């Protein structure tokens, strides 16, 4: 279902062709990183710390090196030294630990051998001596006055007055309206304050991290890997190795899920170093256990929010104190949480303070709309409470306070055209909104916001001799972006989308392109494709003018054809195929490139409505109906926009109900498998009804905003509000697992809060 405002009529944009890479993926022909095998290939295994916090006193690799089949063993000694202050210090020491390990699973050495079994045996034979240090495992422990300080160099950024001693607080962010908060809350008829806690969760991509590296005697290496950005893999690997970028070629494999978790690197520098040492290709594939223990979960949090509202529902004041754990190293969780917590609503008096805290768990990585789902959990459930207390419908409260074009964001700038109100109205007008509920069922409403970003992208369009086209970009396709690129190129050139082959080029085949993150691929790389196509049309008009023997100014490009508009004589239009067929005689191959830094990323809003059924005897929560609206700007391929919305909902429901990292008292993860870390599967979820709202982004040639992230922001509060509606219980501690729901029901006096 699509709600649109008037927009240009497109021939291809907005249609739903089968994706170009679809058949290969559903038939198993698509090549993921772990599918590649090279002649003479060795297998690499990482040696990981069993301790959450320890000083490495010695590493003895001699026994491992002498074992059968072993060709290379590396430690941090095989990499250039780095010191605090280095631009990518945290990334470098996370990939391979130097003098200390900061979490259980921290890599500290690696082995390459002829077989995986031999490599595993040798990895177990690497002798590491540790001085075990007290582990800091929670926010409260990290902030305790006598807490062990993880990093002696960590002086809190943003502290006022400036920090004079190291601490576990990496950053403090403060945003405020600059107004008198006491006076602001004094304007309110109702003031409510609530606290929330959440735990780290994993992105849960099905494909573990994997790569193959082949380093030659010329000192150049080729890496095949699964990532969200192969140019980033190149530069980060070069940084760790102390190499120039030109020594590294990265070929992107298909990616089996990333969701932000593959915007950083773990294995690639190790594989290159092992390959260089052994003189053979080296393949490394993480186990699921390693993925959980050593790759980035989303942060855990402690959140406190206070809202003041007038009796008519006007929000007048908001105070937020947000603490994010980013694992063992500094991270942006608090900053991003602070930037999103009040962003959807007009609140004239606000004060936000956010802390980023380090603890002895794996270094956090991005996860769809990083930090925003958690602030939405707090803000949107508290909004529900405010609405109930004031006797105002939850939808009406949101409509009354929703930000619109021209109104200031928390950062101060006025919003450009945005579609928050349209998303609210789309849900309000959906049959789900007024459908009756069954026994033990409840309904929850929640909204969400995410910035979306631009950054750099490149594209090359090559026209083939028969008039078909190849579109090469540098954006790994993690959500259907190949189809989007083909559709935009089709619209510009007038070629059928299935006559366009969208290709993800390697680091030597296409211009620099930033990571596929921030919902940027269809927005920014799409702009590069459009730019390349428009240059191509200029060239096609020139070639057609030559063929017609007329002035180029008398040739227009109309619906995929060069059309003569002069008055000298009649000329038949020339198609792309006509022009391509004569390309050798009119100037040679037809190629055009587009490279740009994309400005004007448009914010995305989403509004979700969730029905749950709660078993009052077991606390099990089942999502029985779900409707999600989201402003896509323009949906280039509506099916994949719907897929992004549905995927965000599925992951958000898992985050709400089941997912959490569980550690023992020593910081050892106790549930590092999909058996014990429960993500939703298809049978756990109903059909998710996706409503695409289209309020075009004025900065994009087709109005694209980007849709990959916003959909994960509202599900947690939508589920929480639905559970409250079903049970009368507010649960402010994630996940809302059966045991917590049952405890809440019991504490509330029995089923349904009665």
């Amino acid at each position, binding site marked *: 279902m699509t709600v649109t405002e008037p927009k240009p009529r497109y021939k291809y944009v907005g249609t739903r062709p089968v994706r170009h890479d679809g058949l290969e993926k559903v038939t198993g022909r698509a090549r993921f990183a772990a599918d590649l095998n090279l002649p003479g290939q060795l297998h690499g295994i990482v040696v990981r710390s069993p301790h959450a916090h320890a000083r490495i006193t010695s590493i003895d690799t001699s026994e491992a090196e002498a074992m059968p089949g072993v060709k290379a063993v590396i430690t941090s000694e095989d990499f250039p030294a780095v010191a605090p202050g280095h631009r990518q210090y945290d990334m470098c020491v996370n990939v391979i630990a130097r003098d200390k390990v900061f979490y259980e699973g921290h890599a500290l050495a690696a082995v390459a051998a002829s077989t995986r079994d031999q490599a595993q045996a040798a990895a177990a034979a690497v002798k590491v001596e540790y001085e075990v240090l007290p582990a800091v495992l929670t926010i409260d422990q990290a902030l305790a006055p006598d807490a062990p300080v993880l990093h002696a160099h960590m002086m809190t950024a943003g502290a006022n007055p400036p920090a004079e001693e190291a601490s576990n607080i990496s950053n403090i962010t403060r945003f*405020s309206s600059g107004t008198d908060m006491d006076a602001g809350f004094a304007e309110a008829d109702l003031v409510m304050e609530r606290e929330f806690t959440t735990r780290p969760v994993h992105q849960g991509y099905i494909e573990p991290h994997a790569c193959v590296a082949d380093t030659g005697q010329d000192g150049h290496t080729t890496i095949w890997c699964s990532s969200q950005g192969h140019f980033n893999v190149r530069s980060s690997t070069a940084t760790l190795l102390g190499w120039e970028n030109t020594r590294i070629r990265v070929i992107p494999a298909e990616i089996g899920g990333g969701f932000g978790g593959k915007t950083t690197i773990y294995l690639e520098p190790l594989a290159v170093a092992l390959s260089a040492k052994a003189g053979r290709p080296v393949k490394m594939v993480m186990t699921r256990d390693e993925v959980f223990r050593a790759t980035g979960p989303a942060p855990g949090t402690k959140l406190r929010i206070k809202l003041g509202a007038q009796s008519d529902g006007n929000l007048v004041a908001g105070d937020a104190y947000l603490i994010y754990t980013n694992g063992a190293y500094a991270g942006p969780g608090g900053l991003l949480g602070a*930037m999103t917590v009040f962003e959807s609503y007009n609140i004239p008096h606000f004060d936000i303070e956010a802390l980023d805290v380090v603890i002895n768990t794996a270094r956090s990585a*991005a996860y769809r709309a990083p930090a925003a789902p958690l602030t939405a959990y707090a803000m949107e459930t508290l909004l529900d409470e405010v609405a109930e207390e004031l006797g105002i419908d939850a939808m009406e409260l949101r409509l009354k306070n929703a930000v619109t074009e021209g109104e200031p964001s928390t950062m*101060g*700038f006025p919003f450009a055209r945005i579609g928050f109100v349209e998303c609210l109205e789309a849900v309000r007008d959906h049959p789900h909104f007024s459908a009756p509920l069954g026994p033990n069922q409840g309904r929850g409403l929640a909204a969400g916001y*995410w910035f979306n970003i631009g950054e750099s992208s490149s594209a090359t369009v090559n026209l083939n001799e028969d008039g078909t086209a190849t579109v090469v970009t540098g954006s790994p396709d993690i959500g259907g972006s190949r189809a989007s690129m083909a559709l935009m190129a089709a619209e510009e050139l007038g070629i059928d989308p299935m006559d366009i082959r969208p290709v993800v080029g390697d680091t030597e085949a296409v211009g620099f392109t930033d990571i596929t*993150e921030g919902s940027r691929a269809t927005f920014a790389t799409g702009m590069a494709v459009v730019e390349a196509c428009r240059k191509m049309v200029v060239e096609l008009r020139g070639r057609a003018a030559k063929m017609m023997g007329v002035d180029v100014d008398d040739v227009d490009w109309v619906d995929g054809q060069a059309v003569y508009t002069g008055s000298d004589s009649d000329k038949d239009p020339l198609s792309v195929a006509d022009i391509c067929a004569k390309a050798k005689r009119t100037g040679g191959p037809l190629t055009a490139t587009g490279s740009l830094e994309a*400005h004007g990323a448009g914010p995305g809003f989403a509004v979700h409505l969730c029905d749950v059924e709660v078993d009052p005897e077991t606390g099990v929560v089942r999502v029985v109906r779900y409707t999600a609206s989201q402003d896509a700007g323009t949906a280039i391929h509506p099916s994949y926009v719907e897929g992004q919305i549905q995927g965000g909902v599925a992951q958000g429901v898992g985050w709400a109900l089941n997912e959490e990292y569980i550690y023992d008292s020593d910081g050892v993860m106790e549930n590092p498998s999909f058996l014990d870390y429960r993500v939703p599967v298809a049978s756990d979820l109903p059909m998710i009804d996706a409503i695409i709202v289209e309020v075009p982004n004025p900065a994009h040639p087709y109005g694209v905003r980007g849709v990959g992230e916003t959909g994960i922001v509202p599900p947690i509060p939508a589920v929480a509000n639905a559970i409250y509606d079903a049970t009368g219980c507010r649960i402010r501690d994630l996940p809302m697992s059966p045991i917590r729901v049952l405890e809440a029901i019991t504490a509330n006096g029995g089923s349904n809060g009665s």
Partner: protein
Amino acid sequence: MAVRVHLSSNLRGPAGGLAEIEAEGATVGALIDDLDNRYPGLGDALRSGVSVVIDGLLIAHPEYEPLAEGAQVYFVPQTAGG
């Protein structure tokens, strides 16, 4: 080129807490130089990890972005994504 600068609240420290400042610059880089001359330390705060919004357009790396007379320039933290 005279423009009006708006600082998000986390960037106001070096500017003595000011939210808005009149400043000069033909480009965002020149504007930051002007601001740094008048508010030492503000330049460092604005050159790293900061984006601008000009006429509703978010620009992540704005150093050489030209400015029009009377432009409204909002400095905001740079965002990332997943």
